[in-house]
């Protein structure tokens, strides 16, 4: 049953992706990207990744859509028809795809309980978080306690990106005022 639900959701995800590739109105592309993120969040719920699904729905479908729409407001939403024929990109994509599909042949099937990924680190985390009376949600325990340095690094990345965005957009209002003044002077 779970395979069926997952299969349907994944097929819808692939369909939305095709629509994103073919759509030339950037406003449409941004909205489709939001739809894509919500579908991805549903798939993640089916795959038991509830925390990731919540983050994807709020960050991927929420914040990303907002900043993309803000950028469209500032730059315009028209995409010119492509100047080149898409033969080379199509070739690169097909070869990469074929190599990746070839790579999946040896992978264990969906949902098998004794594949190598479940045998090594994960049981230790599950056991230790019970033993040390960490939060019942193991994802929280691993994120904040066992792998706290990862989260520290993550916040550093966000801080750096925030400073970068501020520096890039800082002079914007001043520049616009300046050009408006010049225009009124002449």
């Amino acid at each position: 049953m779970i395979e069926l639900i997952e299969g349907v959701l994944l097929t819808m995800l692939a369909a939305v992706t095709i629509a994103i590739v073919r759509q030339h109105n950037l406003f449409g592309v941004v909205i489709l990207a939001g739809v894509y993120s919500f579908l991805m969040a549903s798939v993640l719920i089916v795959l038991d990744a509830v925390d990731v699904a919540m983050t994807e729905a709020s960050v991927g479908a929420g914040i990303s859509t907002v900043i993309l729409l803000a950028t469209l407001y500032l730059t315009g939403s028209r995409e010119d028809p492509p100047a080149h024929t898409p033969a080379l990109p199509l070739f690169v994509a097909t070869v990469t795809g074929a190599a990746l599909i070839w790579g999946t042949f040896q992978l264990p099937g969906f949902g098998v309980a004794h594949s190598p990924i479940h045998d090594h680190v994960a049981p230790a985390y599950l056991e230790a978080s019970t033993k040390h009376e960490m939060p019942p949600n193991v994802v929280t325990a691993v994120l904040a306690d066992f792998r706290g340095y990862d989260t520290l690094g993550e916040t550093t990345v966000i801080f750096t990106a925030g400073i970068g965005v501020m520096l890039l957009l800082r002079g914007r209002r001043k520049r616009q005022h300046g050009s408006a003044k010049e225009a009124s002077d002449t």
Partner: protein
Amino acid sequence: MIEWQAIVGHYNYYVTVFLMVAGLYIVIAHGNMIKSLIGLGLFQTSVYLLYISPGKIVGGTAPIIDPKYTDYSNPLPHVLILTAIVVGVATLALGLALVVRISEEYGTVDEDEIVAMDQDQ
């Protein structure tokens, strides 16, 4: 019949590869920088799927400890991908800020037009 089962069991991976390749195609084929960034986002989300789908156990539940359950899906990929999502939106924001800046300077966000302008100078 066994072949058919193998295909169903790997359907996740096939869709993951398709999303990845579609993202790659958008990044290479489209000159518009905003669309390229969305393509990059597609590529990124396909990696989420690549990490999370092997962590699922059929019959297991979300990794929240409760005496009623014994089988939990693997929590480690979830943690790694939580970090990846947030870093992804940070990169997207920085990339879009660059796009806004480029559009102020050149009046366009199309790569080909920008290259042509640079060559004219």
